[in-house]
């Protein structure tokens, strides 16, 4: 019954803040090395090695590997912005619809429960790649809505596919969280005269939602990584941009490893930073040092 309790975050007193700052200064170097910099150092080393070996293989008279990489970096960053855009949109759409679907699975009305369950299973048990192919094939590119011609771009279809995947996973998280809420909370709410819907919105979900935030933020990283799948259906995101850049530099096979490694580096940097931030948030949100791990 003793689930992780929520402790509201309070600004520390000046003294505690100063003491914390001092301790933080002492441990900063250690912390950066231990958590942030070590894998990054490895990746930077691998990138440097790849560039170096590629340089050794390249023919004389061509632009150096480093210069070529630098030339395509802005384009890659543009592509990466597309990944983030699709990722953020899919997360927003998927979380909201997933919340509804998760609640739908708990409905006392059979048909709603059944449809919610089937929808969750369908989208959860299908690879995002397959969903993406399905939607790109079956959703028309041109549609008429109230006499209005609208174009459904490839990236919108990709967003839709990834949203569906996100939705089903969120639904499972919501269902699990609500179902693990102690029965006493429901009983207490009913005793106070709440209806089932009121109990859910006013008592159960307010307790569960903050606990869902860290796993959902962690899932955001997975979603952003899944957006690279959009490249196989022709969306101009970072992987497609890298492939396009490689096709411009045709014949320079030594560029392959550094180019893909650069894409990996972009994802690594953002995912790793995000993971650390989520872990920090989780320690803040849940008053336990281990972040409420079972």
């Amino acid at each position, binding site marked *: 019954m003793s689930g992780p309790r929520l402790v509201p975050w309070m600004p520390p007193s000046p003294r505690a803040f100063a003491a914390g700052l001092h301790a933080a200064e002492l441990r900063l170097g250690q912390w950066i090395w231990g958590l942030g910099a*070590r*894998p990054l*150092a*490895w*990746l930077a080393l*691998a990138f440097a090695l*790849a560039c170096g*070996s590629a340089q050794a293989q390249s023919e004389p008279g061509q632009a150096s590997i480093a210069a070529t990489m630098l030339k395509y970096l802005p384009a890659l960053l543009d592509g990466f912005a597309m990944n983030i855009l699709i990722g953020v949109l899919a997360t927003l759409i998927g979380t909201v619809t997933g919340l509804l679907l998760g609640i739908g699975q708990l409905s006392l009305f059979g048909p709603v429960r059944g449809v919610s369950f089937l929808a969750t*299973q*369908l989208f959860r*048990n*299908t*690879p*995002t*790649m*397959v*969903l993406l*192919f*399905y939607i790109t*094939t*079956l959703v028309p590119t041109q549609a008429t809505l109230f006499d209005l011609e609208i174009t459904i771009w490839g990236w919108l279809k990709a967003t839709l596919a990834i949203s569906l995947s996100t939705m089903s996973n969120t639904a499972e998280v919501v269902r699990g969280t609500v179902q693990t809420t102690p029965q006493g909370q429901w009983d207490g709410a009913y005793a106070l005269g709440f209806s089932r819907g009121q109990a859910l919105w006013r008592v159960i979900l307010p307790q569960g939602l903050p606990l869902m935030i860290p796993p959902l933020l962690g899932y955001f*990283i997975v979603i952003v*990584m*899944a957006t*690279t*799948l959009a*490249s*196989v259906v022709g969306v101009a995101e970072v*992987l497609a941009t890298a*492939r396009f850049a490689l096709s411009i530099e045709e014949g320079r*096979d*030594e560029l*392959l*490893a550094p180019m*893909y*490694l650069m*894409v*990996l580096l972009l*994802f*690594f940097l953002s*995912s*790793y930073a995000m*993971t650390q931030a989520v872990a920090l948030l989780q320690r803040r949100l849940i008053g336990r040092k281990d972040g409420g791990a*079972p």
Partner: protein
Amino acid sequence: MVTGSARSQGEPAGVQLRGAPVLGRAELPETAGRVMEAWLGALTESVASGFKWLNANHGYNVTVFYDAYDWQRFVDGLWVTTWLSLVCIVASLVIGLMGALIDRANLSLATAVNDGFFSFFRYTPPLVQIYFVYFGIGYLLPTVEDGFGGREPILGGLALAIVALSCYAGASNFVIFRAAMAAVPRAVAEGALALGYGEAATYRHVVLPLALRLCLAPLLNNLVNLVKATAMAFAVAVPEVVYMTNQIGADAGNRAEMMTLLLVTYCLVVSVLAFGVGKVEDAMRLPGQAA
């Protein structure tokens, strides 16, 4: 029935029932086989005619169910997916376990390399990993004669996709194994040592069995995810089911139907897997462990 015919040369083999004629060993399965073949034939025929009718009357053209060649391609694709999944599951388990044991050994340099390797595969997208391994590393590999006068890399798309996917899933397995080993109380291992178990025997008989049951749920979920992730091998032209379905769709011009078939196939297969995994989890749950 190779064994049956080989044996029947030496001895008068047969099933002698009282009052019944001697039934040759080879005949019984043969008859059953013929009956089954007839049934399967009838089934195939009726399914085929059903889908032909669907195509003729509703324009819903699922060639796979009435065209023998497309059916063969689809089954080949499924077979490659199955095979790819199994190999990747075994390899990812080995990779994850090795990583967790290295991590546990607490050697500073080995741990640093280990952490770097697994962080790399955890925090980067699997599709880019596949491209990187296929193009980046595949390019550096030595080449061999391809039998047509040219040269080809020593490892093809399938092998390199296996490498990339195994490392990707292995990274998650590593984290799961590491957490599970940390969750086994130190006193249990110490107790085993006190009873005279060696270091290796303690792991083999005490720590690993307990850790395995602790981490079974996330581990099996990750392996189901790996089965889903094998769809990405399509990107480097591994002839698995997504690739084959796309091929059939392009050849027969029925992409929409093929994509639906692919969606349904994956959903069914993974649902069955997920259901089985749930059953195994229930059966293997440690007494007293939370659901």
